[in-house]
C-alpha cells in the first residue's frame, strides 16, 4: 500500500520538490553574498562606515524578502490544498474508490497509509523550506531584532512543520466530507487561514503568562498628543523590547488610575489652549514651542508610568515548540476524524 500511495502521489510530490530545489538554488546563489556582507558589518568598527554596510545588507534582502517569506508562509496552506484536499476526495469524485477499496487491503489500512505517507511528506517539505529560509534570512532577522513578530515566528524552524501537518489533515478532512476536490480546496484555504490568524493574534500572546515591565515615560519614544472629540489624549509608542512579543502596553498613574483628558487639560493647559498664529489654520500643534512640550512631558512623567506586558525573547523556542505541538495535535484530531469518516460514514 505504501508503494501504491507513493506511486499515486509521485507527480504532486515532484512539483513541490522542484519548488524546493529552485528555492534552494536561489538561496545558495544569493545567500553567501548576503552573509559575507553581514560578517563585514559585524566587524565594521575596524573599517568604519557601518551605516552604509547596514543599509547594503538591508537592501540586499528587502527586494526579495517579502516574496520569499510569502512563499514560506503560504507553503503549508498550499500543501493542504494540493496534497491534502484531493487525497481521498479525488478517489471518491472519480469513482476509483470502488476499485481501491475492493482490493485486498482494508479501507482502514488504505486511509491510514495515505494519511501517514503524504502527511509526513508535507511536514518534511515545510520543514526543509523553513530551515533553508532561516539560514538565508538569518542576518536580516538578526538585524531587525524582531524574531517574535509573526512574520518571523511563523516561518521559523519548526512551527511550519506543525502548520503543514494541520493544513494537510484539514485538506483530507474537507475532502472526505465534501467528496469533491474543488470545494474541499476552497474550504481548506479559508479554514487554514482563519485558524492560523486567530491562533497568531489571540492565542499565541496568551500561551504563557506574560512578563510585566514598568517603564518611566522620561525615555519613552514616539510620544505625542492626539486630538479626540473630547479634547486631547496622550500617545506613547511601544517601548522597544528586542525580539520580544509585546502583549499590551498602557499608561498608568503612579497612584493608580488612567490619564483623563481632564487631567491633561488642567496640567498641560498651555499646550492645549495655544492659539495658532493669526491667519493660519490647520493643526493646532503647529507652532507649539518646545518648552511647552517639555514642561508638559515632565508633569506627565512625574505622575504616570508605562506598563508593558510581553513574552520575552528567551521564550522564543518554547513558543515555537508549543505552537508546533498544538498544530500537530490539531492534525492528529483531524486525521482521526477523516479515518472515522471514511470507515463509517462513507458506507
Amino acid at each position, binding site marked *: 500500500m505504501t508503494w501504491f500511495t507513493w*506511486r499515486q502521489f509521485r507527480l504532486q510530490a515532484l512539483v513541490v520538490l522542484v519548488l524546493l530545489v529552485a528555492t534552494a538554488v536561489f538561496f545558495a546563489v544569493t545567500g553567501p553574498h548576503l552573509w559575507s556582507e553581514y560578517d563585514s558589518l559585524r566587524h565594521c568598527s575596524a573599517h568604519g562606515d557601518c551605516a552604509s554596510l547596514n543599509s547594503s545588507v538591508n537592501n540586499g534582502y528587502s527586494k526579495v524578502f517579502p516574496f520569499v517569506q510569502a512563499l514560506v508562509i503560504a507553503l503549508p496552506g498550499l500543501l493542504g490544498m494540493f496534497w491534502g484536499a484531493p487525497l481521498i476526495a479525488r478517489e471518491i469524485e472519480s469513482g*476509483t474508490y470502488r476499485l481501491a477499496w475492493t482490493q*485486498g487491503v482494508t479501507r482502514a489500512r488504505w486511509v491510514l497509509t495515505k494519511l501517514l505517507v503524504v502527511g509526513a511528506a508535507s511536514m518534511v517539505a515545510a520543514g526543509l523550506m523553513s530551515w533553508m529560509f532561516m539560514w538565508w534570512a538569518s542576518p536580516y532577522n538578526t538585524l531587525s531584532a524582531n524574531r517574535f513578530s509573526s512574520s518571523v515566528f511563523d516561518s521559523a524552524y519548526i512551527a511550519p512543520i506543525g502548520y503543514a501537518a494541520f493544513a494537510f489533515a484539514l485538506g483530507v478532512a474537507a475532502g472526505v466530507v465534501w467528496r469533491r476536490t474543488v470545494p474541499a480546496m476552497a474550504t481548506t484555504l479559508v479554514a487554514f487561514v482563519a485558524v492560523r490568524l486567530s491562533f497568531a493574534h489571540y492565542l499565541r500572546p496568551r500561551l504563557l503568562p506574560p512578563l510585566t515591565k514598568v517603564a518611566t515615560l522620561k525615555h519613552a519614544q514616539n510620544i505625542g498628543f492626539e486630538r479626540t472629540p473630547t479634547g486631547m489624549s496622550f500617545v506613547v509608542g511601544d517601548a522597544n523590547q528586542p525580539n520580544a512579543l509585546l502583549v499590551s502596553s498602557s499608561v498608568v498613574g503612579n497612584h493608580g488610575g488612567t490619564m483623563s483628558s481632564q487631567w491633561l487639560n488642567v496640567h498641560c493647559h498651555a499646550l492645549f489652549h495655544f492659539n495658532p498664529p493669526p491667519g493660519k489654520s490647520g493643526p493646532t500643534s503647529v507652532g507649539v514651542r518646545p518648552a511647552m512640550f517639555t514642561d508638559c512631558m515632565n508633569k506627565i512623567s512625574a505622575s504616570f508610568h508605562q506598563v508593558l506586558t510581553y513574552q520575552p525573547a528567551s521564550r522564543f523556542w518554547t513558543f515555537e515548540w508549543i505552537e508546533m505541538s498544538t498544530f500537530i495535535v490539531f492534525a492528529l484530531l483531524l486525521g482521526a476524524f477523516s479515518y472515522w469518516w471514511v470507515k463509517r460514514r462513507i*458506507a
Partner: protein
Amino acid sequence: MTSALHATDLGKRYGRKWALSNCTLDIPTGHVVGLVGPNGAGKTTLLHLAVGLLTPDSGTINVLGEVPATSAEQLGHIGFVAQNTPVYEHLSIETHLAMGAALNPSWDAQLARRRMHDLALDPSQHAGDLSGGQRAQLALTLAIAKRPSLLLLDEPVAALDPLARREFLATLMEVVADNEVSVILSSHLVADLERVCDYLVVLAAARVQANGEIEDLLASHHRLVGTRRDLDSLPTSAHVVEVSHTERQTTVVVASDDPILDPTWSVEPLTLEDLVLAYMSQAEEQRRELVRTKGGAS
C-alpha cells in the same frame, strides 16, 4: 456448503428513501447469477453491500460466509468490477497490474500479463486512453487476477458497444470455465444475462421479486390465456405475477410448481424476458398504486 451470498432482511436507505429493503436471498456457490432489474432498482446497492463499500441499515449480509470487507483476507476472496469500470486514468496498464500485485496477496501476475497480451494491449498505455471495451477488460483482469472465489460485476457491459459486449461476456465465460469461481453480474437487459447466467435474481422497486435457477424459474412460470374472467378459479398454489384483461380475454402470468390443469386456460411457456418483464411491470404497478394511495390520502 457456504452460500455465495446470504442476505436476511437486508436494507439500505439514502436519507428517507430505501434503495433496498426486505431483501432475503440465499445464492449458492457455483452459479453465474444474473441480477436483473430496471435502473434504480437497487442492483448497485446490493452489490456494494456485498463487497463492503456500503454497510446495511437493516438486516445482515454474508458473502462466502463472512461479513463483507471486514478483513484484507475477505476482500481478497472477492473480485469486483464496479459500474462504468473505474480505473486510474493517469496510470498505465502496467501500473494497474503492479497495484493489483501490491495490494492482493493471491495475485496471479502471469494470468494478468497473459490477458493483456491476448487483448493486444500495450502495458505502457495510460488507462485514460483506452476504449470503453478495453477499460472494461482491464477492470475485469484486475478482478480475476486476484484469483477470487466470487466475482461481482456491476453492469459491466452497459456502456459497451455490441461487439465489445460480446467479447467481454466471452472472456467472462472463459474465466468461469477455467476457474472455480461464482459470478454475480447485474444488468438491466435480460438479453445480456440470458447467454451467460444459470441463476437469476429479479430486483425491482428496491425488493427481490423472484430468484432461483433459470431452469426452475422457467419451469414454474406459465402464461395462461383464456376468456375474460375473475381469477378465483386458479389453484391456490399458483401465485399470480401479472394480470391483464382485454375486452374478451384475460392473460395471467403465474408462478406455480404444480401444473395448471384447468382446460379453460390455454397454458403457454414463458421466455426469460417475459418472465422478468412480468415481475418488473407488477412491481411498477404496485409502486404506482402506492403513490396514488398516498396522494389520495393527503
